[in-house]
């Protein structure tokens, strides 16, 4: 299995080694905290000052440009590592460690919440309208939806009250994430880690040094070199705050709806074209449903990585997500008229993967 076409070259195999991603994630989390603290020293969470404080950080603060870009790009790298970590967990059946898996899902949701509120802080056009659209999703809740949204806003629209509390949440949530990460590791240490074969390896453990010490060292080297690479700081990279417009307008400019952001579900292209937010909420539920109930759908004793159909299903899911991700920034808002998006969306929403996966995990062969 480890010599199949999934492992074409030795360097790629070593880069894909499992614990590299989570050790990188841990280091990135530390990096985000440190850069975030330094940014917080110069940031002002007020609508009349926020944007210019970010400009001040970028232009005037010593190495402020580096800290700000490391923080912004580090968040995207953080999510990429997490998605790889989750993908590994699905492929090798690590979700069978239910407590570890469930704390992991909670961590993912908290991380997404942290990234969302953090994205609002520069108070650019994308910040404002992103906050408006996503918080308005809660209005889909019957009866209390509108009241709930206004309660979160602290007013009748996204305004100063919203910005200040989002800054508070963005500062607080990472520490919650750290605490929950301890719980995640605690549960993992109850069972021990999984491995590519899925077999019980208690009889065959290896020492931390030199195997994992060198592997973690590789993660440290990659983690410190990649975020400081200046080629990532061009105007086309992540979470770019528009510099031409200082104050949010009443209506979102059309050209602003195609900015690139990797921190959320690949369905963001679909998000941006959605006018019916109830429809969006309903359609996005298969995503979380699939992750949440994966351990309970696995009803037989067989390992998913030894089942060819499960492998095909997994990689087709990944390909589908990549296609959806690529289409996000490439197309205009008229997503429904593009057949290149309709087919991937159809497969994603049709519970195609869930039903096939169910067939696999319930198979008696």
């Amino acid at each position, binding site marked *: 299995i480890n010599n199949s076409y999934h492992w074409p070259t030795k360097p790629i195999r070593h880069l894909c080694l499992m614990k590299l991603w989570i050790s990188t994630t841990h280091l990135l989390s530390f990096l985000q905290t440190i850069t975030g603290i330094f940014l917080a020293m110069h940031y002002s969470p007020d609508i009349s000052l926020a944007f210019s404080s970010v400009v001040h950080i970028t232009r005037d603060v010593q190495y402020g440009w580096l800290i700000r870009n490391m923080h912004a790009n580090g968040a995207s790298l953080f999510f990429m590592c997490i998605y790889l970590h989750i993908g590994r967990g699905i492929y090798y059946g690590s979700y069978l460690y239910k407590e570890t898996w469930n704390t992991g899902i909670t961590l993912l949701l908290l991380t997404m919440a942290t990234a969302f509120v953090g994205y609002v802080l520069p108070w650019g056009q994308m910040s404002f309208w992103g906050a408006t659209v996503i918080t308005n999703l809660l209005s889909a809740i019957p009866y209390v939806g509108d009241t709930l949204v206004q309660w979160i806003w602290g007013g009748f629209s996204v305004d100063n009250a919203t910005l200040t509390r989002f800054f508070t949440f963005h500062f607080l949530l990472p520490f919650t994430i750290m605490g929950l990460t301890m719980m995640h590791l605690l549960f993992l240490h109850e069972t021990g880690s999984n491995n590519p*074969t899925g077999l019980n390896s208690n009889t065959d453990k290896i020492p931390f040094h030199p195997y994992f010490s060198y592997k973690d060292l590789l993660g440290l080297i990659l983690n410190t070199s990649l975020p400081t690479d200046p080629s990532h700081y061009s105007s086309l990279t992540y979470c770019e705050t528009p510099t031409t417009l200082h104050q949010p307008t009443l209506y979102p400019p059309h050209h602003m709806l195609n900015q690139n952001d990797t921190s959320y579900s690949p369905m963001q292209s679909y998000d941006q074209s959605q006018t019916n937010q109830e429809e969006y909420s309903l359609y996005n539920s298969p995503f979380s449903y699939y992750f949440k109930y994966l351990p309970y759908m696995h009803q037989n004793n067989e390992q998913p990585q030894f089942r060819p159909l499960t492998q095909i299903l997994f990689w087709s899911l990944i390909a589908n997500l990549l296609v959806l991700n690529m289409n996000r920034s490439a197309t205009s808002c008229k997503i429904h008229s593009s057949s290149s998006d309709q087919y991937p969306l159809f497969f994603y929403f049709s519970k195609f993967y869930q039903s096939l996966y169910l067939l696999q995990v319930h198979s008696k062969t």
Partner: protein
Amino acid sequence: MAVRAPVSASGRLLEGFRKWYYNAAGFNKLGLMRDDTLYENDDVKAALKRLPENAYNERLFRIKRALDLSMKQQILPEEQWVKYEEDKKYLEPYLKEVIRERLEREEWDKK
């Protein structure tokens, strides 16, 4: 794995597919049998305790060898791969017995 040779065309087709699927799964290339790859839930753990000593030791050896091969990103030479016809479901009788006893116990506890 087959107990007796299938006689009908559809049976032969199904058997051919099973054999292809067995080889495509890939665990035989690590020297594992199907029952070696079962996820160790409570039922499997209980069934393992009932295995004869020689069967358990052979299982441990196969698992240890597979873990070592997996760590080194290697597989066995082709002549050492477990063949579809040679694979024995050595754990299945004990596992069925454990599951039957558990279901009987649960049924009894409901009363």
